[in-house]
Structure formats: structure tokens, C-alpha cells
């Protein structure tokens, strides 16, 4: 469970997150909102790239903001980025193994854990293949494998399906859905693809201009009139 309390982030003149209080109970949670709503800023606060002006974030009872940024991975925080960031020069195996190495997980189980994660995401390429030679879909899968290896507690996925065709997005959705039960991790999914969000997420929170405007069971949230007006409504106006 992740509890966010009064989280406020200010950049010069802009307030990307304004007094946000929300609870991500577990399973797969969606985080949606129009462009510039503060979703990625929220992830950056969790990763430690952005220091909030005030507020608190507790993950399973631990004060996340008190931890040094690079130590959060060892605590169990994983994330992917909007632009895919698998390491081109390394093999698929090494890409996943390097996360395991810094996660504090046991060295003796490294090979098995890494191969498990690669099998879990359904990657058919040989583990020795260099990521530089892979296509968009495989790279996204490598990223997800990196996010689930080494006993994660919280997995942040930032638009994991960006740029993928519908059919591949569906396959990715199936993988994401299985993360909580397979690895016992809480998943927070940011995406603009409502099909993906409703397929994966039991609960969803909605941000608009840095403010939380709704949260709760995904189906209810997507019917909420504030949400429709703020987010989905923009399409109707066009």
C-alpha cells in the first residue's frame, strides 16, 4: 500500500502537484489524467528525482522520501520511463541482471531469477541477444522484465505501451495484470490508453492540473462526470 499525503511540488511558477492525497491500496492501480496533469512528476517524486515542497509518501509503512534516490531500488521500487530505456549495449540477460545486482537479492539465485523474469514477460529472443538489435515491442518487454526482477514491492509503469500497436498492447496488458499475484508487487500504471487501464487496473486515480479529482474502483472513476469533463471530454469538444 502506498499512502500519499498532501503532496505538493512547485517548480518556478508552476505547481505540477497541488496538495495531492491518495491511497494506492494494492494490485494494479491506474493513474490517469490529461497531458501535464502531474503523473510523471508524481513518479519522479517516488524515484527521488524531484524533491516535493511538502507532503509525505509512505510505502508499506516506510517513509519513501527519506531514502536516498539510488537506495529506493534496493527497498523494492522499480520503474519504467515514457521513452524506453533498456540498455542497448548490453544483452537482454545483462539488462535484467544489472537490476538484480543492485536490488539486494541473493546472488546465488540470480541466474534463475533473471531467466524467470524474461520468461514471465514472454520474450522469445535468446537472453544473449544485444538489446540494440531488438524491436520496440521486445525492448518494452525487456523493460518490464527489469521492473519485476529481484523482489519488487512497487512497480511504476510510465506509458509502457506507448508506440505499440493494439494487438501488442493487449499482450502487454496480460503481462501487467499478472505482476501483482506473481511477484506480490503493487503496480501503478500511467497510460493514456483507456482500454489498457480498464483491462489492468482495479482502482484508478485521476489527476488534472496537479489536483486529484477522483479515485476509486476503475469502472466508477471512468463514469465520474468530473473525469469525463476534464479528461475524456476534451475529445468531445474537438
Amino acid at each position, binding site marked *: 500500500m502506498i499512502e500519499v499525503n498532501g503532496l505538493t511540488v512547485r517548480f518556478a511558477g508552476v505547481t505540477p502537484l497541488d496538495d495531492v492525497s491518495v491511497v494506492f491500496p494494492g494490485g494494479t492501480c491506474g493513474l490517469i489524467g490529461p497531458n501535464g496533469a502531474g503523473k510523471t512528476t508524481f513518479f519522479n517524486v517516488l*524515484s527521488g528525482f524531484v524533491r516535493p515542497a511538502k507532503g509525505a509518501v509512505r510505502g508499506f509503512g516506510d517513509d519513501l522520501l527519506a531514502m536516498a534516490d539510488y537506495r*529506493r531500488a*534496493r527497498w523494492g521500487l522499480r520503474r519504467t520511463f515514457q521513452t524506453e530505456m533498456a*540498455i542497448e549495449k548490453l544483452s537482454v540477460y545483462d539488462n535484467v541482471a544489472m*537490476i538484480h545486482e*543492485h536490488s539486494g537479492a541473493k546472488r546465488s539465485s540470480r541466474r534463475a531469477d533473471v531467466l524467470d523474469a524474461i520468461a514471465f514477460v514472454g520474450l522469445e529472443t535468446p537472453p544473449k541477444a544485444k538489446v540494440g538489435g531488438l524491436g520496440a515491442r521486445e525492448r518494452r518487454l525487456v523493460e518490464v522484465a527489469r521492473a519485476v526482477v529481484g523482489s519488487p514491492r512497487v512497480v511504476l509503469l510510465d506509458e509502457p505501451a506507448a508506440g505499440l500497436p493494439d494487438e501488442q498492447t493487449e499482450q502487454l496488458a496480460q503481462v501487467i495484470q499478472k505482476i501483482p499475484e506473481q511477484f506480490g508487487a503493487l503496480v501503478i500504471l500511467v497510460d493514456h490508453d483507456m482500454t489498457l487501464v480498464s483491462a489492468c487496473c482495479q482502482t484508478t486515480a485521476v489527476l488534472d492540473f496537479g489536483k486529484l479529482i477522483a479515485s476509486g474502483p476503475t469502472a466508477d472513476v471512468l463514469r465520474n462526470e468530473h473525469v469525463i469533463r476534464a479528461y475524456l471530454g476534451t475529445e468531445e469538444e474537438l
Partner: protein
Amino acid sequence: MRAVLRVERGTIVRGVVIVGVLAVALFGVPYVAGADWITTSTSIAIYTVAALGFGILYGRAGMISLGQVALLTIGCWIGTRLSYATSLPFPVLLLAAGGITCAIGVLVGLPALRLSGLYLALVTLMFAGATTIVLSVNDFPNGGGGFSGRSATGALATSTPPVRRPSWAIADVAFYRYTVIVCAILFLLALLHVAGKPGRAWASIRESEPAALAAGVNITLYKLWAFALASFVTGVAGCLLAAQVGVPRAITFQTQDSLTLAATALIGGIFSLWGALVAGVFQQAIPFLFQAQWGINPNFVLIIFGAGLLQVLLTAPGGLADQLPKDLARLGRLVASRVREQADAEKKAP
């Protein structure tokens, strides 16, 4: 048990090539080379290590340092001073020079925690320039004894004793072999790093620092580690250089050498350890060929390096170490297909 015996083809090929190159370097070169080529070959071996340091920093961790020859000079200077001041055995001298250069290299690397790209390149180049100035002001040993190595008269005394070599490698050929073996050990040290946890952490830093942070990589630690390793191997190589030339003089070390080293390292290829070998040959053998063998002004070498660098940056970012095997394979296929055509044609002809 079958799994234990199963070794991949690539690993076997690589092993055979490594043993082959070492055998040629240790036994082939001394057999055919004259005295001048032995000296040049020793320099080649030493500069491959300097290029290796550049490759670790830029090719692996993505930090461009133009001060690598300055670190080689510092290793050389420390080796020389320690040789005069102490009676330490040569291997200890090597380790001490490596260790002290390592400490200085880490200090030089501190700006890398805040700067990158062009700015880091400039700062390290300034460091190289400053090193040249400090050394020419203080001069290399000019005949005095002790750690300072200075005599009051200031003029280079003819009695300046050369930096000692290991007792069983006094002769040039023996010292050349000694150098090759030490350099091979340094390459092995680099290989162990690159293929292990540090190498993977460096690759992730090179790809994206935010992603590396999110992966739990302590960026400060691994960046300084890269500088420490690169400086250590370069410092050891510098000490070898001191013993090779005997009486090093400040004038032999120019700031521009750091630039040509960067150029040759890029031509050789910074993503492969083989690239460092190519770089060492380019850096030392080509100027020697131009000047001593063909009597051409060695400054023309700069034009060749410039053209080579342009070609690499435009068409082969992996450098010669990456391109040559590909080209050889292509040539092999071409020859094979020609031979087949020829055979077919002969079959058809009665």
C-alpha cells in the same frame, strides 16, 4: 556434466585469437624485429593501456576524458621519483605508481559528477595542459639523487642514472616481454570489470543517468570507480614507460598527445578492448614509420588521424575493432563465391 563441457563457439574463437596475439607479441615480434622496432613495440604495448583507460571512461561509462596521456605522464613521473628515492623492487614500483596515479585520477574525475560531454572534455584537457606545465617547470630528473632528482646546477648531468628495470628484464627484448605480460594482466583486469557488475552499471549510466538511478546504481561510486580503474592501469603503464626510456624528460610529453590518443582510441574502437590494441599501434607505430623509416615529417600523422577519425565517426562508430571482423567476413564470402563461380564454370567447360 555435458553442460559444463559445452563452451560456445564465440568464446573459443576469442580465446584462440587472444592466445595467438599474445604468442605473436611474446615470441614472433622479438624474432623478427630489430632493436628500434623492439623499442617501438614496447611503446605500443604501453599506449594500448592508455587507450584502454580512455575506452573504459568513454566507451563504457560515457565520460570523455582528454587527460589520459597526462595520467600516463604522471605515472611515469611517480615511477621515476620512486625509483630514485627508494630501492623498492620493480613490481612494487608499478603498483605504487598505479595506486598514486589512481588517487590523482579520482580527483580529476570529481568534476565528472557534475559535468559531462564537452565541459568534462575541456576540464580534463585543461588538466593535461596543467600537468605539462608543472612538469616542465619542475623538470624530470636532471642528475640529482633522492626523491627530487634535482641537482643544484640544473643542467642535465651525463651521469643521470636510468630508472631501474626488473633484474631479470634489463635487456630491451626481455623488458619488452615483461611489458607485454604486465599490459596483458592490466587488460585482464579491465575485462573482469567490464564483464561484471561494474561494466553493467557503467553501461546503464552511459545509456541514461535517471534510469541508472532508478535501477539502484550509485552513480557517484561507479563514475569514480571508472576513473580509478582507468587511472590505475594508466599509472602502471606510465611506470613501465619510465623504465623503458630510462631518463624521461618533460619535453617528450605534450598536451596534444592526449588528443591524438583520444583520436586513435576512437579509430580503434572504444566499445571493444581490441580497439585499444589498434589505438596503441596507430599512436606509436605510424609516427615511428613516418619519422624513422620513411623520413616524413611526423606532423603529417595528424592529418591521417584526422581523416581516420572522420571516416570512423561517419561510417563505423564501432571503430576498426568492430569494422575489421565484419569486413574480413564480407571479403571471405566474396572470395568463396568467386571460387564457387570459377569451379562451376570449369565444370561446365568440357
